[in-house]
């Protein structure tokens, strides 16, 4: 339903998105996970034809987004809940979209009801909305055309815990009825709660992708050596991808047996060697986040 193939976006010398590929199937929720500034939003904008990619392709329902005659009827998009005219009422924002898509006016009331915005809220200007209400309005806008695909950028932002719980149910239900959902988040727990598949992005690159269970379970091996530097060099030499943790250990994307063998062959002393287990994805994600915030601080 959503096919992303080798998408790359460069801004001058800066590579915001670097050769990103993944696909989302009907009936699934795909979590697009990454720290702030990892390239999630840029990738989503490229899928929706709002940002021209430097290279690569993206297709939704088999076609490039820009070639869809009436995309709102096939794909519900929520890229930024704050991107609404502050002077319009919530209902008016939906009415304009309904007219553009050629959707029956009655749908406006139906989706307002579905996202939990009551008549009073719908009559207020969006400028007076809280972020949570804007997210609900944005979701209403995405659902308005009765689409088969949802593309949502950080939809849980600003929602209260009850709202987050409600949204998970809505997305789960949408996917269970055969819909395709791609949602981004910088919160691992958020994605873990609703997604079937996870694509982890960091520094513009996909660093991990797969079924959630498989990623959470087989997230690699945690290894610690007496000489971390030598361990790193050895792992690099045999081509095992190792990410440095915050405490001197490494997360290696291989079985513990394989890692132990490499260390033994090199004559290195290990102080710890175990499957990373549930913490693996988190460890990987933390490493990405740490790197990103350091970069931001330096800027």
């Amino acid at each position, binding site marked *: 339903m959503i096919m992303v193939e080798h998408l790359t976006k460069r801004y001058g010398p800066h590579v915001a998105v670097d050769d990103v590929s993944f696909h989302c199937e*009907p009936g699934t929720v795909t979590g697009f996970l990454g720290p702030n500034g990892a390239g999630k*939003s840029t990738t989503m*904008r490229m899928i*929706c*034809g*709002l*940002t*021209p990619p430097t290279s690569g392709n993206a297709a939704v329902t088999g076609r490039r*987004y*820009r*070639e*869809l*005659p*009436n*995309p*709102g*009827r*096939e794909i519900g*998009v929520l*890229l*930024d809940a*704050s*991107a*609404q*005219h*502050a*002077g*319009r009422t919530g209902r*008016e*924002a939906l009415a*304009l*979209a309904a*007219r*553009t*898509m*050629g959707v029956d006016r009655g749908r406006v009331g*139906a989706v307002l*009801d*579905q*996202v*939990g915005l009551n008549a009073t809220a719908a009559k207020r*200007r969006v400028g007076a909305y809280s972020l949570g209400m804007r997210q609900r309005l944005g979701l209403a*806008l995405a659902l308005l055309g009765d689409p*088969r695909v949802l593309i949502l950028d950080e939809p849980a932002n600003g929602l209260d815990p009850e709202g987050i719980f*409600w949204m998970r149910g809505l997305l789960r239900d*949408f996917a269970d*009825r*055969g*819909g395709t959902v791609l949602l981004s988040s910088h919160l691992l727990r958020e994605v873990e709660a609703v997604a079937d598949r996870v694509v982890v992005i960091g520094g513009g690159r996909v660093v991990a992708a797969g079924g959630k269970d498989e990623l959470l379970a087989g997230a690699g091996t945690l290894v610690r050596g007496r000489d971390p530097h030598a361990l790193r060099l050895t792992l690099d030499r045999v081509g095992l991808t190792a990410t440095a943790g915050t405490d001197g250990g490494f997360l290696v994307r291989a079985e513990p047996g394989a890692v132990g063998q490499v260390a033994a062959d090199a004559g290195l002393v290990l102080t710890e060697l175990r499957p990373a287990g549930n913490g693996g994805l988190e460890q990987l994600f933390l490493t990405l986040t740490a790197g990103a915030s350091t970069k931001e601080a330096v800027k």
Partner: protein
Amino acid sequence: MTTTTAPAVTNRRPVADGPSLARLTGVELRKLADTRAGRWLLATIGLIAAAIVTVQLFVLDDAEQTFTAFFAPSLLPVGLLLPVLGILSICSEWSQRTALTTFALVPRRERVVVAKLAAVVLAALASVGVSLAVAAVGTLLAGATGGAGEWNFDWQLLPHAAVFQVANVLMGAGFGLLLLNTPLAIVTYLLLPTVWSILSAMVQALHRPAAWLDTSVTMEPLLGAEVTAGQWGRLAVSLLVWLVVPLAAGLVRTLRREVS
């Protein structure tokens, strides 16, 4: 918050065709009036036309209080505000970031731009109607208060007024498309005639080009009933520079710009 049992998401109807230009123009017309700022701008345009007529009622000699004398002066202040309408129609999408929604629903951006231009042109034509209406009211009042109140009207003035206001609104839209930033576009647009007059007062060599390029000079004949071929020529040249070029360059910029 209600739990709805919606039908299965798959296996559904063939997807509807895209929106027609007429539908998009309707949407853009609605956008002109559905915000507080938009409503105020439209109301101000109407009020200013009425205010000018009121002033004319007091300052003109009784014998001069004719329909034409009320109609023509109301065009100028309206013509000053119409470009702002054109600019806002284009730029508010970017300043309020609604372009994200608009272009997600209609990825063929040129269609949105054409619909916006059609909407503001219709608004400009409607403003001529407003000018006619307030001039008519003024004429009636003049007749009732001892003025001439004559209905003589040179019908040539009507198409000239239409060209005047359409050119004004499209120049604004062109600046908006090119600059894509409300304050920048408004300031640039309003400063331009002043810059022209200052420059041509300072630099002798600019006198002749100003007659061809300064729109405040070339558009002036449109406020009268007679426009000579030479004046049409100068008008065409100035509009080519200040209307057609910004529109074309702005369209290219809007089509290519990243929406975020």
